[in-house]
């Protein structure tokens, strides 16, 4: 490696967790700075957009872009970074499929603004002031980015080279991606990297019973503890959480996280996104869980059982709403 890699890390509609996760590569940071220079990372250093605009096209070797496209600023910078980067990586759940902020796609923009600025219990906004995109001051007109109707994933607005899922991506996988990039050993464009090739079940410490088990009661992990004494006949591992009635996204979620949540006895939340070839993760788990409901051929009974799933959309689409077939909106 003669020349150092120029790396950018940018955040759009995101929480900053992806940057923190990147720091979790711990002592590997030292190896990282040996091979790479950070040329953009608003989270930790003061870079100006004009600095980026001044870079020649393709100046950035790899740009890790996290966060979804919520407003005109995010879209503008995504387009800018696309131009300035040789390789653009959608990094983290939000850039991949909208992530948690995309749950707002279930509502209209107006309803969301009303909730945020007017009806939220802790608000103090007697005049009902709402955000505006422009404001005239004696000194001139001020502009704010325009909020879009819905949150979009990065590849809705620009061409994306690689996808690294996770909320956030786990450090080990981030490091393996960086190593692959540094070594120039990347799979074909469009691939999902830093992942396994199966579902979370593959790395899971629990196991299903051999005889088909149906769910007759759904449980919530903060209200009930999983029973670790029940064992699966197959290999004596504790019984699968889904079978125990906890809504676990593991079977519909791509492996790669090493089933961290499950190792802490928490059901999978699905942050690594759908398995290869699956479009809509929420729809997939909904039909899988629907199939497991112990309806005994009785539609009333099955409706009763299904009704125990609290916030099904928020659960099944916790990270995937921006990529859902529900309420799809084009920019």
């Amino acid at each position, binding site marked *: 490696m003669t020349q150092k890699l120029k790396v950018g890390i940018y955040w759009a509609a995101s929480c900053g967790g992806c940057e923190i996760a990147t720091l979790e590569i711990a002592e590997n940071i030292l190896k990282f700075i040996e091979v790479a220079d950070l040329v953009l990372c608003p989270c930790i250093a003061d870079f100006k957009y004009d600095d980026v605009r001044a870079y020649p096209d393709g100046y950035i070797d790899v740009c890790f872009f996290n966060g979804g496209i919520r407003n005109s600023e995010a879209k503008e910078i995504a387009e800018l970074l696309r131009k300035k980067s040789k390789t653009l990586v959608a990094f983290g759940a939000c850039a991949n499929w909208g992530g948690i902020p995309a749950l707002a796609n279930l509502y209209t923009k107006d309803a969301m603004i009303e909730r945020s600025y007017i009806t939220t219990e802790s608000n103090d906004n007697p005049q009902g002031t709402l955000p505006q995109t422009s404001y005239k001051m004696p000194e001139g007109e001020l502009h704010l980015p325009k909020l879009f109707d819905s949150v979009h994933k990065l590849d809705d607005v620009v061409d994306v080279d690689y996808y690294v899922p996770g909320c956030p991506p786990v450090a080990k996988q981030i490091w393996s991606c960086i190593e692959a990039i540094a070594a120039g050993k990347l799979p074909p464009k469009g691939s999902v990297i830093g992942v396994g*090739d*199966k*579902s979370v*079940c*593959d790395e899971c410490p629990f196991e*299903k019973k*051999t*005889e*088909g*088990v*149906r769910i007759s009661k759904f449980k919530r992990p903060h209200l009930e503890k999983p029973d670790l004494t029940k064992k699966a006949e*197959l290999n004596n591992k504790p019984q699968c959480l889904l079978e125990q009635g906890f809504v676990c996204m*593991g*079977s*519909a979620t*791509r*492996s790669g996280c090493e089933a961290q949540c499950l190792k802490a006895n928490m059901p999978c939340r699905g942050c690594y996104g*759908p*398995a*290869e*070839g*699956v*479009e809509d993760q929420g729809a*997939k*788990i909904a*039909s*899988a869980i629907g*199939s*497991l409901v112990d309806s005994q051929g009785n539609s009333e009974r099955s409706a009763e059982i299904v009704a125990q799933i609290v916030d099904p959309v928020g659960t099944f689409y916790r990270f995937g709403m921006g990529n859902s077939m529900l309420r*799809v909106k*084009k920019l």
Partner: protein
Amino acid sequence: MTNPRIGVYVCHCGTNIAGKVKVTDVVEHAKKQPNVVLAKEYKFMCSEPGQAMIVEDIKKEKLDRIIVAACSPLMHEKTFRKALEKAGINKYLFQMANIREHCSWVHEDGAAATEKAKALVTGAIYRAQYVEALNDREAPMNPATLIVGGGIAGIQAALDIADSGRQVYLVEKEPSIGGHMAQFDKTFPTLDCAACILTPKMVSIGQHPNITLLSYSEVEKIDGYVGNFKVGVRMKARYVDPKKCNGCGDCWQKCPAWRVEKPKGDKKVVHNALTLGPTKAIYMPTLQSVPNVPVIDKKSCIYFKNGKCKICVKACQKDAINHEMTDVVMDIDVGNIIVTTGFKTFDVSKMPQYGYGKLPNVISSIEFERMNCSSGATGGQVLCQNGEAPKSIAILHCIGSRDKEHHEYCSRVCCMYALKFAHLVKEKTGAQVYDFYIDMRAAGKGYEEFYNRLLEEGVRFIRGKAASVTDYAVFPEEEGKLIVRCEDTLVGKVRRIPVDMVVLCSALEANADAPEFARLLKLCQGKEGWFTEKHPKLAPVSTASDGIYIAGCCQGPKDIPDTVAQASAAAAQVLTAIAKGKVQIEGVGAEIIEEKCTGCKICNDMCPYKAIEFDAVKHKSKVNDALCKACGTCVAACPCGAIKAKHFTDEQIMHEIEGVLYDAKL
């Protein structure tokens, strides 16, 4: 991969399609779509020259995907697939766009229909880019047949098949076979005695070495597919062992409890109870019952109420009665199924204007049939409630039929059985008969002649639907009578006709359990509830489910000759299928992609055909090709997309949708 080469053929179907859809526009549109090498139109694609054109183009233009925009694939998919095979390419590389049933036949606006046809064709073209060649499989054909419903239809079909040497299981839910016909005395138009022509057939069923009669039984479960159905039949406990019982009747003669009581006091005849009895708690449905074995009615039996009695057990010299008997569930394997579950009559109390259930001597047609039956409660006499013969009687047609409030359709047999009733009344009582009809429908062989005969017998025919029946007398001659009000459309006057008895010719309607039964067998029901045939003209006894046939009144109202003809037709279809010896199973089906399966086992228990096995060593699931019926359940269930529905892959479906929406403004 080289690009596919697509040929598109748009059919006129005479004027069926071309009369509404601008076929040329559709062709021009198709030409502009990706990978379409040629697009043509033709008058009748399904004709010999139409098919020959496809074969020739495939060879000359090296086409490897064919799209025909025409009628329903149910109708002609097979036809065109054969053309592909003839031209030497895999038959699954074919796609049909239904622009007849889905376009020209259902839309008024020709321009809009044309746009829709374009969209459907585009969908087919987009999908065709992703279809793959598949291979059919073969499975053995089980030569046994299940027949559900032991009316005349079921009886006829069972005898036809059994006589050819094949095994038949006949399932009847009532204690005896015979259905409606067994309740009649005479049959129109020939007036031959129903029992005389039916009883010998019923007896043959009971004795035939190739027929297993499962009476008082119901089908509970059906798995499998054509050639290899697995059927679960529940044989309800009848509390009498058919192997020991000789039908002597000692039991019911001694039984002290009544299931349906004999008339008491000044009521000499209870018309409303005629269809059921009178019978004791242990009873034989009719004298001609097959099997000739009684059954205990649990509701009226004293032993089942308070644990004491068993007089019948003592009376029975054959030791055949056993109150401890329980339901038995039997599994049978068959290759084909014929459904002959018949009909029920419309509940005439739903039309209170005719007073059924409230006014004495207003009776339904089935009750009238029972009264005429020589083995029935009145010994075949037509009697009023007070035991006297009526001096005048009104027969009201179309009760529940040809009536938008109830059934829009004509029940087809009511005019004729009304004439039969009129004749019987004349013959037995000499009473004056008034026959209220809207139109006289006598369109069968010998039917018009039968009508003429009744005209000569002096029946008074009044053209007009009776409006109501009342006992409120306005004129002195109406005192103590039933008065039928009606607009006589020939005279153009409202008339009031006093009579002693009124017979309501109830409509034929689908059985109450038809929806449930349809779900069980995966049959379709039309909007009136009758089971739907595969094609109304060309496949009248087949259904959309391979290996399942329908015959008789479960398909729609019809008389006995038509019922028997259908039953024999269904039997012939089944025998043809058995003669082939094998069933071809479509190459369509589920496939688990091993690398993607995580062994989560969610699919394992989903398959209704038990086609999925779990390999504990590999920790992966696998579909057994021979058992998979391509229902798609597992495909939807697999949370990680490891199961591929061959011929219905996500890729194919999503692209088809994209094609259909090609000009949608999102």
